[in-house]
């Protein structure tokens, strides 16, 4: 029955007209293609090698993605350097990371994705203009290019290539103001596959001879905004709240509130926590890969904003927070 369900999903996906290369117009609408790409990423079973590049960082990773009983399973293995891999079911994930003579196990249970998000294309329209590009072959598959051009300076541009047959995202390139490549994630090789017969692939293969060390687990739970001393004003255009959680971080006296915003493709997190006398206050900027970080201290609170967006966006989101007297 499991296999039956999977093949049903697979057949439905292939039978939907917009997936085919038919000349019926759906293939010419970048918004429809984007919507399908969002669904394909979750529903398809595939295995391939991704190359991630940002600044001087270049990493190759093998990814296996399976939709089993309507739940998403992914295993991502870092192919260069010390062995590291992630196993993910929905939003619950474990990362196994070899460090020196140990394997550090970092586990995070985050529950299901928030439901009832608006349609992706509706979401994206405020921030971007979408334009269809030409064909591009990526990872041995025939892709169609979609350009997402930013309507303002609060987001980067994106060039995406999606698989002509299945809608799977094959490549995404984040572009700065001068069309410079900020980050690129692309399959160097990928194959769609039927659902595997068992879950034997969903287990780590890290050095069994090394001791495993469990990292102290952060408890993450969804949190209402009631009782906050702070309020959030106007966000930059196109950004909406996706989620809001509270993190109990080992070693921290107070829980950290995290809000996640997205404009449909770019994501930003806002962290707010009361200052802890034992922890140094952080004020300033930094950049890691494509992720800008901005930190400030206001009214006895540490604010941190991080996201794959221009510096002005993280700064503006931090400044949208104000405090009640």
């Amino acid at each position: 029955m499991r296999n039956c369900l999977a093949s049903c999903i697979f057949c439905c996906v292939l039978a939907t007209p917009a997936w085919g290369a038919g000349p019926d117009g759906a293939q010419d609408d970048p918004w429809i293609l984007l919507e399908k790409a969002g669904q394909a990423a979750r529903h398809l079973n595939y295995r391939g090698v991704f190359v991630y590049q940002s600044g001087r960082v270049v990493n190759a990773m093998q990814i296996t993605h399976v939709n089993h009983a309507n739940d998403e399973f992914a295993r991502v293995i870092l192919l260069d350097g010390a062995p590291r891999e992630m196993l993910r079911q929905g939003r619950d994930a474990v990362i196994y990371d070899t460090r020196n003579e140990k394997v550090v196990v970092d586990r995070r249970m985050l529950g299901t994705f928030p439901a009832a998000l608006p349609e992706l294309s509706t979401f994206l329209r405020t921030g971007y203009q979408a334009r269809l590009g030409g064909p591009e072959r990526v990872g041995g598959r025939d892709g169609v290019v979609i350009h997402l051009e930013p309507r303002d300076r609060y987001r980067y541009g994106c060039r995406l290539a999606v698989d002509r047959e299945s809608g799977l995202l094959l490549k995404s390139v984040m572009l700065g103001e001068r069309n410079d490549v900020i980050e690129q994630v692309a399959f160097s090789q990928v194959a769609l596959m039927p659902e595997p017969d068992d879950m034997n692939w969903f287990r780590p293969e890290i050095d069994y001879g090394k001791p495993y060390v469990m990292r102290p687990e952060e408890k993450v739970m969804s949190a209402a905004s009631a009782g906050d001393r702070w309020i959030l004003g106007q966000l930059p255009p196109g950004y909406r709240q996706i989620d809001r959680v509270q993190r109990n971080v080992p070693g921290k006296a107070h829980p950290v509130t995290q809000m996640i915003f997205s404009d449909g493709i770019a994501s930003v997190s806002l962290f707010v926590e009361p200052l802890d006398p034992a922890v140094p206050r952080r004020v300033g900027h930094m950049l890691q890969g494509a992720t800008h970080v901005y930190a400030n201290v206001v009214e006895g609170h540490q604010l941190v904003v991080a996201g794959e967006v221009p510096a002005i966006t993280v700064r503006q989101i931090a400044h949208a927070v104000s405090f009640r007297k």
Partner: protein
Amino acid sequence: MKEQISVLMDEEMDAQSSARVARKLTSDPELYDCWKTYHAIGDALRGQGQFGPDFRQRMADRLAAEPVVLAPGPRRVFRAPFLLPVAASVAAAVFVGWVALSQVSRDPAAVVVQPELAAGELPPDAMNPYLRAHHELAWAGGMQQAVDVRRVAYAGAAE
């Protein structure tokens, strides 16, 4: 039946039903496979996947090599807590309400505006826990591949 298996694994089933499901499990190879699959998923997500695919064989070999002790040992009940409730993942997704589409707030009580303090470079090691937390929950329109990749790429960053 598969839902009952996940309920059984979450230890939310009474003894009588458990016995019935267990009998079915042992007599139906397909259900037994399902049971093993759920356990493999659970092990991997509990961080207990280190046993490896040939664990059972290696264990059997080691047991065979052990000397036989005839005295009865203390009786222990081992309960493996299935921390990730499979029932929750098998059952229909819980509807989480879409909240706060608009972030605009016009609360007149808000009087403290942020001073222009932030300047200078942040120490990366101190910010890595925030970056990790961000990558965990980032949402990229359902096209999560880039999010997964970033998460793994930067997981090794120091603190």
